[in-house]
């Protein structure tokens, strides 16, 4: 074979490799939809999304309790992780001296690397008993939100920090030259300029929160009721799939795939918003 043939052939080979991602994404969509379709047909989309009863034994499949559960833990985690994460990002990008950054940044990286089951285990043994002191069994939305906060923090911190750093130096120098304090500069100049990146960080963090599965199963109690307070037990969409898929058959199994379809859409919508916001901000630095 001539080297020119190899040259041309390899271009096509690497293209096929790149195209594989699209194929996989398409296959995921097709398989999950196909498997979820019978449940949508039998239950009806409205009853499936807004039904409050999930009783596979009696063929009742309404996922509203799980939707509420997922949204509640995500909201709780965001409430805690936005101030913490953006504060930490400001510290890393603008305030901390080199020596502190040298410790803090690897620490944040390490938080990403800790397996979700380890977060769940620590949550079960430290956070759940602490919540139990306040009331209830401890396996609750509050416990899940706290565990999720730790898991989402690295995403919020690293993308926010990047976007604060990407603000042109001149902005900051101009502000300081006008006599603004360091904090006035951060608050009135840097943060507004970095806004799109910070919003994207928060949205991607929400995506991670909604998608988290194992740690949630371990600390949230998994009962299928619409929670009334943060101390109540609940179940997430992800947990619903994982807890029941191994023994589900027929419509029940299909309903779990339909739960996956809902999750798939939620994530695609969130990620598309994040990408759009980043692009509009002119700094497409996709994060993971």
């Amino acid at each position, binding site marked *: 074979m001539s*080297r*020119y043939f*190899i040259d041309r052939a*390899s*271009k096509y080979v*690497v*293209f096929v*490799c*790149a195209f594989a*991602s699209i194929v*996989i*994404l398409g*296959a*995921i969509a097709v*398989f*999950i939809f196909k*498997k979820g379709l019978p449940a949508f047909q039998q239950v009806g989309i409205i009853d499936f999304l807004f039904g409050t009863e999930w009783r596979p034994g009696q063929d009742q499949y309404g996922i509203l309790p799980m939707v509420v559960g997922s949204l509640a833990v995500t909201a709780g985690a965001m409430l805690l992780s936005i*101030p*913490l994460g953006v*504060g*930490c990002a400001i510290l890393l990008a603008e*305030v*901390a001296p080199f020596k502190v950054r040298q410790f*803090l940044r*690897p620490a944040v*990286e*390490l*938080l990403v*690397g*800790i*397996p979700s*089951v*380890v977060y769940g*285990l*620590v949550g079960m*043994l430290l956070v759940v008993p602490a919540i139990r002191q306040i009331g209830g069994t401890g396996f609750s939305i509050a416990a899940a939100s706290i565990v999720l906060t730790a898991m989402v923090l690295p995403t919020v911190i690293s993308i926010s920090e990047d976007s604060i750093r990407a603000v042109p130096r001149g902005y900051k120098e101009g502000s300081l030259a*006008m006599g603004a304090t*360091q*904090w*006035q500069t951060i608050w009135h100049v840097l943060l507004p300029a970095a806004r799109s990146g910070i919003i994207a960080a928060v949205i991607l963090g929400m995506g991670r929160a*909604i*998608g988290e*599965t*194992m740690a949630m*199963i*371990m600390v949230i109690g998994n009962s299928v009721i619409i929670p009334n307070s943060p101390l109540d037990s609940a179940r997430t969409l*992800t947990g619903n*799939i*994982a807890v029941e*898929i*191994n023994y589900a058959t027929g419509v029940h199994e299909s309903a*779990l*795939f339909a739960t*996956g379809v809902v*999750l798939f859409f939620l994530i*695609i919508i969130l*990620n598309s918003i994040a*990408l759009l916001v980043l692009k509009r901000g002119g700094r497409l630095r*996709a994060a*993971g």
Partner: protein
Amino acid sequence: MLRVKSFSSKSTQRAAMVFVWGAGAVTMLILLAIIGYVLAQGIPEISWSFLTTKPEGGLSGDGGISTVIVSTIYLVGLTIAILLIPGIGAGIYLAEYAPDNRMTRTIRYGIETLAGIPSIVFGLFGFALFVSALHFNFSLLSGALTLVCLLLPTLIRTTEEAIKAVPRGHREGGLALGATKWQTIRHVVLPAALPGIVTGVILCVGRAIEETACLYVTLGGSAAMPTSLMSGGRTLSLHLFYLAMETNAFEKAMATGAVLILTIIIINTITNWLSYRYQVKMRGRL
């Protein structure tokens, strides 16, 4: 104009610094609490016999984690072996060939989207395609193929970045010597980008070890020693989950957690060291 509120800019500055440093301190504390707690509780439980006996199962969670370690190594090895060619290939395409057109944008959007999809949705897909439709059942093969889909975006992204970091002059030198584009990539660009690509692969190893949800529904969770690609198995993460949820053996779960965290710390240290070396090398040549 700056809107200076009723209290002085100095006290706002001070309060803000307290908040920002507080946020950093809390983040650090969370990390130290998790790692310190698991290591302090887990390390005393780790012994040679814990690492080399097989789990006995049952409510008390007797035994060690030998078969679990073997399953984890097999699964990670198999995953990486399948992942390498499509991952690196796609990275090469995006860095070296991809024209700025709609197809490339679609591919990039696909990769970004894939990166955001939750592990459990990959699990559902693997369950539907590999476990059920292709009859691979709950096996190392099903688990590995599912993991490949999940890890593909990570490897593509790190490979692309590593290749893009190779200075233009390298390519021009290769082409000027009469090499074809592929020869240049194969013999000049890839060797220069190798440390970056290796970092990406190690990153994928770390993520494969951490992943649980997608394996929970594709790997089967058998605690027996795997004998072939079609055997079921459980990874360290899965084992920890089963111990915590189905037994009372929290000490064993902690010990497994400590093994996991130590592994992750080692992997992080290696990647940090490699990327540091790589940066120094690239800077030296520019």
